[in-house]
């Protein structure tokens, strides 16, 4: 496969031969084995791969939850592998937005408060918090559930609130870890359309998924296998259906979810 043809902007994320080793000297597991790629500003990429391919480890390293054994990860030109713990929380607060499989909303807070929390932690003035929460809620069409608690919402609504929380701080990178994993197909589609719209508005999104359908919403798909980048395909001007077909080809070649045809 040809190397990526990123848009001609500086890379938001740059992974340079990232390695992650687990285990003791005698029994080493190579979770990541020299992964290198760039993500340009405004890109929407999907990282795919079978279980154990290292995609979650990669996401953990990018999100500073884990540290790579060697190699460098640069976000906006800043090497995050050398950050101290105090700088790490600042980095997470200002540059990253997370969307998890189980939404991870605080059950004691309303949707509005969950979204606002991401801003208040960064000491954004109250007036601005209110305006920005309203704005992002409108974009994600969750205005009507803002005053509900997570347990009063549907799974899809929860994920969209989580997405709203992830982007309300205008992060350099939105990291989504199997965001559709716990949703039915209708709600999945709705969430993916929301993410697509956010991307269209300029958000840079990295989504880890093993769901080819979800991946087909991205502009580019990276395939991991045994800790290495095995393949990369770009959507370009193809339709989503065509892109989905291409992804399925790679997936079945990888021996993954070949039978999983939607």
């Amino acid at each position, binding site marked *: 496969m040809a190397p990526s043809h990123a848009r001609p902007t500086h890379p938001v994320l740059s992974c340079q031969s990232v390695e992650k080793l687990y285990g003791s000297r005698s029994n080493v597991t190579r979770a990541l084995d020299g992964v290198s790629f760039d993500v340009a500003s405004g890109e929407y990429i999907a990282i795919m791969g079978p279980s154990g391919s290292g995609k979650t480890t990669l996401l953990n390293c990018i*999100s500073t*939850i884990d540290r790579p054994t060697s190699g460098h990860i640069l976000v906006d030109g800043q090497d995050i592998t050398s950050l101290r*713990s*105090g700088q790490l*929380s*600042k*980095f*997470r*607060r*200002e540059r*990253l937005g*997370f969307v998890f499989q189980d939404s*991870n*909303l*605080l*059950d*004691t*807070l309303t949707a509005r*408060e969950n979204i*606002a*929390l*991401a*801003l*208040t*932690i*960064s*000491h954004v*003035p*109250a*007036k601005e*918090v*209110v305006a920005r929460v309203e704005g992002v809620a409108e974009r994600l069409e969750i205005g009507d559930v803002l005053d509900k*608690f997570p*347990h009063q919402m549907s799974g899809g609504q929860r994920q969209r609130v989580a997405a709203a*929380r992830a982007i309300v701080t205008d992060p350099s990178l939105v990291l989504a870890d199997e965001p559709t994993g716990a949703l039915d197909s209708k709600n999945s589609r709705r969430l993916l359309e929301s993410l697509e719209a956010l991307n269209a508005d300029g958000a840079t999104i990295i989504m880890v998924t093993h769901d080819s359908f979800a991946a087909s919403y991205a502009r580019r798909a990276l395939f991991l296998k045994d800790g290495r980048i095995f393949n990369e395909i770009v959507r370009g001007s193809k339709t989503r259906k065509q892109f989905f077909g291409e992804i399925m080809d790679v997936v079945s070649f990888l021996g993954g979810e070949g039978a999983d045809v939607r």
Partner: protein
Amino acid sequence: MYAKIALGNVRKSFRDFSVFFLTLAFGVCVFYAFGSITDQAAVIQMGEDQRRMVQALTDILSGLSVFVVIILGFLVVYANRFLIRRRKREFGIYLTLGMDIRHVSWIVVIETLAVGVVALAVGLLLGVGLSQVMMYITAGLFEATIKGFVFAFSPAAALSTVACFAGIFLVTLVFNVTTVSRYKLIDLINADKVSEKVRLRSLPLSVVLFLVSLVLIGVAYKVLLEHGMMEEGPYFALATGLVTVGTLLFFFSISGFALRALQASPRAYLSGLNMFVMRQLNSRINTAWLSISMVCAMLFLAICGVCTGFSVATGMNESLRVGTVYDMSLVSYPMGMASALVSADPEEGPAAADGYDAIARLRADIPNYDELFRDAVQVNQYTYDADGNLLVDTTVEELFANTDFTGNATMQTMMQGNTDQRLTVVPVSEYNALARMAGEKTVELAAGECLLWNDLSSLDELWDAVTAQNPEVEVGGKTLRFAEEPIVHLLFSDTAAGGTVSGALVVPDGMVPAGAGPSATAVNLMYAGERTEVEPAAVAAIDEAYGDVMGQGSTLDAWPVWTLTTAQGLLDQASGTTVVVTYLAIYIGVVLLVCCATVLALQQLSEAADNVGRYRVLAELGAERRMVDHALLAQVGVYFLFPLVVAVAHAAVALSVVNDIVALLTGFQIGTALVGTVCFVVVLYGGYFLVTYLTSRSILARA
């Protein structure tokens, strides 16, 4: 094999077991230390009176122990429940691995036993140490000495401690086994996923309830402050009821109210983790408000108990210092008890036969009088003239009624119906003689002047008002004016009550008609030598001479001694009472306080375990460590602080009323004791708070 698993569990999660362990060890330690008081005292060299006091203390303590065992029992079961609840998932894994529920129970039994036995041993060891310290404190309080280093171990106390805790243990064990065997596998496996459903109460309702609770508490305070504790009628019960309901409502609604209030200011609400903290508190208060109310009540009792105990003890000592000016006081009623206002025939009785000269009588009856006493002054209070007519036809109560005085409710209540007696009259020469012997200032009276003699300092303000507003008083048909400084304070006779005379008029000698008999006579004597040396012989001499009439039969015949009071006797008795009261206050106070603190600590720790997920989200959102710590501190702090603040407020009001009583009885203010009590509470309670916060923080950090 199961024992191996059990002991392994204890080793691995020692931190979790530590709360249970500490609670048990603490209980054992305190229980032993206070149970061994009798045996401690055996080592101390002390007088017979003091030994009796220790016996009384032991009796009270053993009665209290039942109460303490029950409280500690609850505490241990509560601590244990926390432990079991945290390990549901672990039990679930045992079951899925094919272990029988009986085997799981068996593991729990072994764990509990292992921790319990070690805690018992450690607790006993600490208890022996504590009792050793207490022994020296006891000796200090009794002003007694311990010769050399003595190691006191009380087998009886140790045995009863072991027995009691074995009992508590058994209950815990039964509780554990039944709890574990009732678990269903599905619940155990899902234990981590099922979070407490957040029930929501309507916020406006919370606001209304909160305001209502404040009103209730306010009304209760007002009722109590206005009517005091001793006034007849439903006031005290009403205040208690109102404050109870008010407090319950307060804790029920406070979090909702605070949330609402903070939300009203977006600048405060949408700042840092404030929102998160408020919601955290609000989500838990649904289940916690009742236990917090209980904690508040226990704290209230602890503060009031410790404070009142200390102040009564100190107050007694203080009033004794004031009340033991003379070495010995002999009081008699030469005309019989004068409470019945019939005219007594002054020519009747042994006193009249002696011409009312008590000192002459004493000299005559006691052969070695001059060896025992170096000085003596007799002071007479006259109610009637020689013909049996009243000298002053005014009762103390009438004077009070004619006086506009806005003192505290308690003093007014105490003065009512308790003062149906005439003002008595004392010749100024007798007063001056007594003053000279006591080394106090003598007074001079111009013709037509008089003074008011009051040795109860707590009534000074009242008498000030009385003499200012009733400047003249009629004595034997003549009108006397109060002198410029109308009140004199000399002690009338030795007493433990802070004073004995209130409402005697000191008048020029000529005002007391010749031939009149005194209704009350006090002979104050000074020993010819050290108090401790002369006392036994002096008391024996009085006993020898008047033992057959003293304090029994007719007051008329008990001349010249109806009551015998000695300074040394009062002091001995008081030091014993101080020890008893102090120990009781500390014992109860410590037990209650530690219970409260433990309950709160356990609540917070179990909450921290449940909160791990929430705090992880905060970290992912990029909240700094310091910010998260602050949020946790606020959360734990509120739980500890709120019940304490409310309890202190309640206690302050209740104590201000108790203070009136204590001050009236002993002339001592509670304030000094309050400072000590507050320090004590802050150290003990604050210590628990700190440990809870740090442990919670490490639970969250570990995750």
